[in-house]
């Protein structure tokens, strides 16, 4: 019930928002802000109720939706979705607050779409019925299309269409695979077919067919993530979207791709995932390095941050593909971290854009003298994105690299190069924008952060420090879910010869390792 409330209150709020007359200027944003606070506050009882450290799905609910086809409203959360729900509610509230001054046209519709988007995002994370999941997954698409297309900048129309086509293409194929699995489930498990995803997990699929199904299924998530070479929609969408859109795109929508990969792909197609993981790993690492290199040469700040996302998401996926607890946990923690720090960086960029209406790096310089508070926040998030110890980014990256190390030293070295490049482009960016003399006259008059902006950034900064210094609660929350994923994948690991030679951290799974330890 709690989950349902959290998910659907934004939808109800969005419907009510439409009833607020257009003449009441300024009321819409406050109304939307108020609505978005409700799920955020409801997360507190959720945090109390949630049984930390216990595996399986909690807070579950089941209502029959379309009985004749076995489609249910089946929801439930584990550690991963729990964390992502909290992240979503926080970031939505923040992005609504961040739009107060930057959105001046068609306010009512803008906040309507934001609230609709929130329902879509939350629904994606709670759905356990594949059909329900798909509905929410598509529900995320439409509001974001409008947010980019109507309120975006510059090439917004091209960006929105590109975003729409790419993601819709992926999900169309995913839908077919879902149907196929549905019929397989009906054949194999007999009786009443349903879209319950655990039914799909229980299937035994022929490895040959499994590979094809996997390709159709995973493409939707890889595009959303996005993995190199499916990333080309991202720089456009992120750059041209309004600040709130960029924050939610980077913070939540990209995560939904990883989430889908973890939640559905791995349990349903374990053998195919293993078979494809060399390919995926290669692409992920290419993404890490390519994203970082391209980010380095960007002249537009927002584009730079967008490309840094490509790099970070590649790193995150590489961690998961290490197939050990550290790597997967690191990957999930990095999901949260990336949501916070990149989201915050987009906010930072949006704030300077509101003042100067340009995002060219060369237009700035010496801002730290004019806007000290702004510069401080920028530094915190920049360092968090780089992965400085003591800030959140470090925890995730450390775990990922640790996990990768247990998998293959070759990939670890390449991934670590990405970290160094990441530090390079971020520090260089900061240096060019913040230090030195004030070169452009217009920058002398810039006002520092106002109270609203300060309070938007403050909670994110606090979270960055909290996770950085004291990651234990987060890790504890995620551990059962991460273990579950490892359990899904480990029985299949030894089946692939290319992996058999790699020492696995969890010793009792690989017979070859057991033999070696016996010798000792």
């Amino acid at each position, binding site marked *: 019930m709690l989950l349902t409330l959290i998910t659907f209150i934004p939808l109800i709020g969005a419907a009510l928002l439409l009833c607020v007359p257009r003449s009441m200027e300024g009321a819409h944003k406050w109304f939307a802000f108020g609505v978005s606070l409700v799920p955020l506050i409801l997360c507190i009882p959720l945090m109390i109720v949630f049984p930390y450290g216990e595996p399986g799905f909690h807070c579950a609910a089941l209502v029959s939706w*379309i009985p004749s086809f076995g489609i249910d409203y089946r929801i439930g959360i584990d550690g991963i979705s729990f964390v992502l729900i909290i992240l979503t509610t926080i970031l939505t509230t923040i992005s609504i607050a961040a739009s107060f001054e930057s959105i001046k046209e068609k306010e009512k519709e803008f906040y309507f779409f934001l609230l609709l988007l929130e329902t879509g995002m939350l629904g994606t994370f709670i759905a356990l019925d594949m059909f329900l999941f798909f509905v929410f997954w*598509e529900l995320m698409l439409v509001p974001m299309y409008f947010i980019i297309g109507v309120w975006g900048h510059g090439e917004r129309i091209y960006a929105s269409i590109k975003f729409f*086509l790419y993601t819709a293409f992926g999900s169309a194929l995913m*839908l*077919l695979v879902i149907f196929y699995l549905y019929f397989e489930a009906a054949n194999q498990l007999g009786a009443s077919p349903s879209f319950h995803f655990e039914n799909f997990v229980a299937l035994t699929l022929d490895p040959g067919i499994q590979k094809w199904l996997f390709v159709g299924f995973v493409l939707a998530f890889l595009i959303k993530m996005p993995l190199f070479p499916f990333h080309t929609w991202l720089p456009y969408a992120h750059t041209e979207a309004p600040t709130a859109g960029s924050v939610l795109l980077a913070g939540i929508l990209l995560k939904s791709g990883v989430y889908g990969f973890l939640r559905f792909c791995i349990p349903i197609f374990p053998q195919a995932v293993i078979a494809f993981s060399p390919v995926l790993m290669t692409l992920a690492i290419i993404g890490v390095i390519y994203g970082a290199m391209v980010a380095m040469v960007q002249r537009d700040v927002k584009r730079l941050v967008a490309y840094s996302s490509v790099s970070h998401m590649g790193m995150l996926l590489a961690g998961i593909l290490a197939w050990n607890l550290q790597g997967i946990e690191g990957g999930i923690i990095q999901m949260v971290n990336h949501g916070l720090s990149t989201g915050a960086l987009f906010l930072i960029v949006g704030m300077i854009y509101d003042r100067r209406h340009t995002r060219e790096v060369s237009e700035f310089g010496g801002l730290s003298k004019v806007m000290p508070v702004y510069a401080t926040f920028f530094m915190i998030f920049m360092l968090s994105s780089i992965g400085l110890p003591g800030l959140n980014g470090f925890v995730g990256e450390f775990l990922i690299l640790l996990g990768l190390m247990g998998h293959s030293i070759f990939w670890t070295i390449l991934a670590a190069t990405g970290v160094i490049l990441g530090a390079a482009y971020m520090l260089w960016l900061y240096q060019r924008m913040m230090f030195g003399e004030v070169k452009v006259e217009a920058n002398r008059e810039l006002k520092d952060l106002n109270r609203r902006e300060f309070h938007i950034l403050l909670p994110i900064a606090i979270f960055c420090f909290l996770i950085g210094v004291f990651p234990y609660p987060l890790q504890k929350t995620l551990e059962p879910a991460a273990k579950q994923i490892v359990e899904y994948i480990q029985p299949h690991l030894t089946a692939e010869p290319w992996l058999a030679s790699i020492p696995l951290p969890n010793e009792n799974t690989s017979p070859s390792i057991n033999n070696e330890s016996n010798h000792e």
Partner: protein
Amino acid sequence: MGNVESLSYFVPELILTVAILIVLFADMFGMERGGFDLPGGAALLGSILALISHVWLYSQPATMLFEGMIAHDMFSAFFRGFFLLCTVVVTLMTMYSMEVIHLKKGEFYSILLSICIGMCLVASAQNLIMIYLALELMSLGSYILAGFSRRIGRSEEASLKFVLYGGVSTGVMLFGLSLLYGLTGSTDFSAIQQVLISSEKGIDLTAFTIFLLILVGVGYKIAAVPFHFWAPDVYEGSPTPITAFLSVASKGTGFALLIRLFYSTLLTRSPAGGFWVEVGDIDIDWTFHLAVISALTMTIGNLGAISQNNLKRLLAYSGIAHAGYLLMGVCLLTDVGLQAVIFYLVVYLFTNLAAFLVVIIMVDTQDEEGMNGVRGLWARTPIVAVAMTICLFSLIGLPPTAGFVGKYYLFVALLQGKLYWLAIVGVLNTVVSLYYYARIVKAMFFEPTYTEEPIRVHPVYAGLLTALVVPVLYFGIFWDSLARYARYCASLITY
């Protein structure tokens, strides 16, 4: 059943007949000048009454009427409801449309109602002569209505093209029917089946020729590739309410004809239940041939739509693509496929009529049916823009609209029939269609308008638009009732 007893199953058609007479009568007194459109009112009332009266049919068991000329089964009851609902909507559209306001309305409505009777008969005919007569009744009416705006050149052109294409293809089809008669010596469906079941081997080639020849006529009606060339021109030239009627009701007739004719002559219901098989020893690869046509139809329809700037032409190509989607369900020859087709037709009715209503509003208020008319529509009339968006999303097949559920059923049927390649073609086509539908959405919401002047929508149109769009959303979320209805209606009479 005898002729007199059968009349009780014929009430909708009888009501329509009476309505036609009243419309002509009302028109004679020229009462439509000035005030209320009396012939229109009579036609509307008649079709609504007929629609209500057809509900009774669902409770009656399947039976033969008029000495076996016509069948009453759930399939025919469904299509009567489909055509009548379509007629009601189109009558309402016509009553307030500026395009046809200066024309002789009385003739217009009486022809519209006659077409509707013809369509109802196509869906229930059990005899080759009957089905051909019914088909001609509706076709001739359609030719006239397509050219109804006599003074406009392209309307004339539309009508002429329609007649020429229609004449040739129905002629070819008639040749197929006569071959069928020559082969079996009977025009009655059940007798034809009897003969074919006990026929000797070696009639494959004849059967295949019959199949092809009849397919020409049917393919023309549903605008399937390669018989689709008339559709864009005719759709563009006809008065918009008629275009709406052609795109929904006429396409529906094509499918009714296809299913009725093939499923009860050359095919027979398998004793195992759940699917149809070829009669006797005939061996034509039905599924494959229809599937290829389906794949071609949707691909060419979607590719053709991409470059269109005229909304009516664009919707014509989108209609061709949808004929392809619907054929996916037909070619399977299964119950599930038939249910999916029926489900999709209902969804298509609401969605497409609503989309055409938006075009009518565009044409009426600014005499513009191109992309320019919808540019910046959101600022000028938000309700219409939102309604159009919902329709377009439903045509694409995005949740939570009914179009998604319709596609869902079609793909489910395909996967169940193990026709994977067609499912993949269908999905890829959906993505292609996304592009041109999204172009309209883009124009409505993102692009600047040439004038900020708000558009005033006639209250009747606003009400009608709402009434059409609400089901699109409702069936997108709670479609169990509609699915059950489709399942109930997907039953043809068996001998």
